[in-house]
């Protein structure tokens, strides 16, 4: 809760103003009951009409004031809630955008979705309804008690004697609700993960007949959720009925004792009426209180889950820029790297270097560490041992933003935003002109684009949308090309393309600028045969490197790989 308040910052004044309006409403409520009592006394005491009417007039003023105060309270509470939520959303988004690679590795997107929708909804309830109601109703109860005390302390004491017991019992009964609510929400989040995968993997799920299995998993999560919800339900019912019982006690006391006092002339009938009205305000909150406490528990549990997102570790800021004329441009020296949370290193004592303008290929079995090289080059992770220098400066010293400005990446998954093709390509360099975008698309062999229904404005659709895998890859490539950087990193960027097209792509990008340094992770050795240097990986280590001819002559792993691939390619007799 405190953290939530801190997040509110200057918005807190809205909340305070709402609270003040709430206080005013509470005061008006008690004043209203008082005047009601006076009016009743005058009626039963057979006072002249004009006296009664004047009391009723005062009462009207108080009621109007109360209504205005309530209006303001609700308005200000909703203003506070909406603005706070927007602030939280935006802060979480900022946190996620700047999160480190290791941090994002640990989060499942369904989990984040669940917190940003379901949990945020509970926070809204908390801030907009539950907490203001709690404040208003408990304050009204306190004011009512004070008023009653001033007028007849004995009766008041008798009627609130049971309150401590009530509060004790209700907080006891409410305690398990928080953890239960949290557990139930976690179950739902788990279910949400299953749903997401069912949607994302819709083809595979159907083709492989996996719907049954997924449904089973989903039903499992639901069963857990139901169990937690039912347990919470039983608890809530106990809370309600206990609250009801104990809240009726003050009523009974007031009626019994008060009635006796009126008979004995110790209490005005009107005052008793006022008391009965106010006992309403004493007992009503006690009925609502258990539920509110339960809600507040659930809300704070949800808030905690949302606020956790604010702790997502960020990428570091600051750093210096390297010098792209340094020789060599890129240098790996005894680099050893293990992904956080995994036992085995992905890269072991890796050393190689890249001179500016070279085309370097990384080849080797899948899982042998090639993609990891790219993740290290972009500064996403830092080696645990050894040194990786770009432009003479280690990636740990580089300003990450500057480092990425001199690189363009094509990722394995060809991730595209759910937006137009043009927007996606332009995201490679935000100030790219229309011609530059077209040129990049052309170089990336995207001749299919004008033929699409909306041409370059065609929406890509997120996962598995309207474009084929090869088309998406080429758009991702265009995005990298439009960036026009000295360094180009390709991570299996042409895996979905046929040989001819792949050939055309490499021709287009290598004949672009002589100066451009290219590092490509490749599977098809024939693609990279003409590269300046081929670095061969095995089990995270560099086992050999050199030109195609030299490696063949050396007769090592590369030669073996090459002959295997080409035995397959030789024409049959």
């Amino acid at each position, binding site marked *: 809760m405190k953290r939530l308040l801190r997040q509110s910052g200057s918005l807190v004044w809205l909340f305070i103003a709402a609270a003040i309006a709430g206080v005013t409403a509470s005061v008006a409520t008690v004043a209203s009951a008082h005047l009601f009592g006076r009016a009743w006394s005058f009626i039963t005491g057979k006072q002249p009409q004009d006296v009664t009417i004047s009391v009723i007039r005062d009462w009207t003023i108080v009621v109007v004031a109360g209504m205005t105060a309530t209006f303001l309270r609700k308005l200000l509470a909703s203003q506070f809630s909406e603005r706070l939520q927007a602030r939280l959303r935006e802060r979480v988004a900022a946190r996620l955008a700047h999160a480190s690679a290791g941090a994002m590795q640990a989060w499942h997107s369904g989990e984040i979705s669940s917190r940003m929708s379901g949990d945020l909804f509970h926070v809204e309830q908390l801030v907009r309804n539950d907490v203001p109601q709690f404040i208003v109703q408990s304050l009204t109860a306190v004011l009512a008690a004070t008023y009653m005390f001033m007028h007849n302390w004995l009766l008041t004491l008798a009627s609130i004697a049971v309150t401590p017991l009530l509060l004790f019992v209700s907080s006891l009964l409410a305690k398990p609700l928080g953890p239960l609510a949290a557990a139930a929400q976690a179950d739902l989040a788990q279910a949400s993960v299953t749903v997401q995968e069912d949607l994302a993997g819709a083809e595979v799920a159907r083709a492989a007949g996996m719907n049954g299995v997924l449904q089973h998993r989903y039903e499992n999560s639901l069963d857990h959720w139901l169990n937690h919800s039912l347990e919470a339900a039983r608890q809530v019912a106990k809370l309600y009925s206990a609250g009801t019982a104990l809240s009726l006690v003050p009523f009974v006391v007031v009626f019994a004792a008060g009635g006796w006092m009126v008979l004995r002339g110790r209490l005005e009938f009107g005052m008793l009426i006022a008391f009965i009205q106010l006992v309403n305000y004493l007992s009503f909150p006690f009925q609502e209180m258990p539920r509110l406490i339960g809600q507040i528990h659930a809300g704070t549990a949800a808030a905690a889950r949302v606020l956790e997102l604010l702790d997502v570790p960020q990428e570091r800021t600051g750093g210096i820029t390297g010098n792209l004329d340094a020789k060599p441009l890129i240098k790996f020296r005894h680099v050893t790297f293990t992904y956080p949370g995994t036992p085995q290193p992905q890269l072991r004592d890796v050393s190689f270097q890249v001179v500016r303008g070279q085309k370097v290929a990384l080849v080797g079995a899948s899982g042998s560490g090639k993609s990891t090289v790219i993740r290290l080059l972009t500064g996403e992770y830092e080696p645990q041992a050894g040194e990786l220098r770009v432009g003479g400066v280690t990636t740990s010293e580089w300003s990450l933003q500057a480092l990425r400005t001199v690189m363009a990446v094509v990722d394995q998954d060809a991730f595209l935003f759910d937006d137009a093709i043009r927007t996606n390509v332009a995201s490679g360099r935000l100030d790219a002109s229309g011609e530059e975008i077209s040129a990049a698309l052309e170089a990336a062999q995207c001749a299919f684009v004008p033929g699409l229904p909306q041409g370059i404005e065609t929406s890509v659709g997120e996962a598995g949308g309207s474009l084929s895998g090869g088309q998406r890859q080429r758009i991702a490539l265009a995005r990298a090309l439009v960036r026009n950087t000295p360094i180009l990193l390709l991570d299996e960027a042409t895996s979905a393309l046929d040989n001819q097209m792949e050939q055309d792509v490499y021709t287009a990008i290598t004949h672009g600028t002589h100066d451009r340094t290219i590092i490509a992770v490749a599977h098809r050795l024939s693609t990279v045969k003409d590269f300046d240097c081929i670095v061969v990986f095995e089990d995270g280590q560099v086992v050999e490197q050199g030109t195609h001819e030299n490696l063949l002559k050396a007769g090592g792993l590369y030669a073996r790989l090459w002959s295997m691939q080409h035995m*397959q390619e030789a024409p049959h007799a």
Partner: protein
Amino acid sequence: MRNWKNLRRLLSYAGDARRQYMSGIIGIGLVNLGVNALFAEALALFTKGLMQEDSHGLLFSVVLFVAIGVFATVAILLAGRALVSGSSRAERHVRSAVFTAVSRIPLDALQRYDPGDIQSRLGNDVAAIGQFYAQTMQLLSNLMIGGLGSIALALIIDWRSGLLIIGAASLLFLITVPLLGPLKRHAETAQSKKAEVLGRTGQMTRGNFIVRAFNLQDWVLHGFTSASLAQRHEGLLLGWYDALRSLTDNMADVVSLVLIAYGARRVAIDPAFLPQLAALIQLVSEVTMFFSQLSSLLTDLQVKLASAVRVFDLLDESPEPGTLPRPPFVREPQAGPGLCVDDLSFVYRTKEDAALQDISFSVAAGHRAAFVGPSGGGKSTLFKLILGLYQPRRGTITVDGHSIYDHELSAWRSQFAYVPQNAFVFSDTVYANIVGGMPDPGIERVEQAARAANAHDFIMQLPNAYQTVLQELGRNLSGGQKQRIAIARALLQDAPVLLLDEATASLDAESEHEVQGALENLMRGRTTLVIAHRLSTIQDADTIYYLERGRLVERGTHEELMAHRDGPYRHLVEAGLRIPSPPSDS
């Protein structure tokens, strides 16, 4: 009214919990009514006792109060529990039904929705339905049973005052009616803005590597902030309307005022009216609550029903048919073993041009057919049609003489082992991923399949070997490792027809070689269709089919096609073929 129908439908999802749920709902309402009625009566007696200084009457009324208390406690415990249990169960039924529906929606219908939209319906809208069961119905019951009952009671006690109370309260209610329309509109807009924000959040998360690599943080946040502000704008407007509507919450005080003013005059004439006045004052709050809550109930109902309709849309999507319906003008299937595709045509709903046209070919039993051609030419689409994932516009597919239209889809699909272009793994254990939808064959057979796919070794190196839970989209595996798991799954399936869609394209040469060997074993004697870019895979095919822009342009053996000097196949091969340097002699 359409809303009424939707309401009934929503309630029907309570299913087996129906009785429990309804008894809880009605019970709560009845308790409400009962307590109020008895309380009003007790109050009247109490007042009379005081006026007539009758201590026995007074005592009796106090005892009545106590009895009411006991009754209320027990009744609320029972009804409350039934209500909340019933509503949880009902919500569960809905969640279950929705998931079932979504997993059965045919692919082309699924693609009409934005992914963020479906997520929002499954998250926000279903949660709203849960709230409907838990709170909205409770409110409805309290108002209908408790509120209407109190109105009736007020009229019975004194019809003139009763009418006065009802009149004053309904007047105040009418003031809020013009607010209802804007309230509903803004509530709906707010929901759709929420969905948009959620969609962007998902993208930022899934695309976080690209966001970092291209320094797109500010760009992505800019878009997010616009969506967030749009949502906030709607919410703020909604807040205004809601606050205005809440002016009527203090209705009770105003109506009490009116009643007292009237009552003062009446008592001056007829003192015996006093006890009735006391009872009526107690009922004022119930009556005014009826009217003031009525508008918020109606609004709440509308919002909840809007959510329900969005969920019903998903539930009402025609599921994948058990069997594909036969399109008009289908030729009779040819008898004979093997796979036969005849006159097949298909168009994606979202594109205009035909994705496939006039496709006819057959693959004899045990033979291998290779499909090549430029990307986007229709090869993957063909496989999806063969699997019955989409419905053809024309044409038929038969296996061993049996047409796809004559079989249940699940049975039809079990004839195929499908290894797709992008290996999709589920965030479950490696074991579960390999077993997929099959009944558990035991660890030995799973390991056997994994070994054959050259996956066993790297699996054993994972923290929990086969029991390691894979992360979303298999992030803790490399592309090649994911492929091998998919291949293991296919090997385990041991289906009569194999469909390989660029299965080995993202493996490096070394493991590709080993998997190739395993696939050769798998393919031997089995009908195989393969989409590949690698010449080696293609060359051993019995027939090669060249697909371009949805049409079969060329077909034949490798030698036959190479003989076409200007044929597209030959061009493709020449582009990809490298003259191999002979392996070194030394």
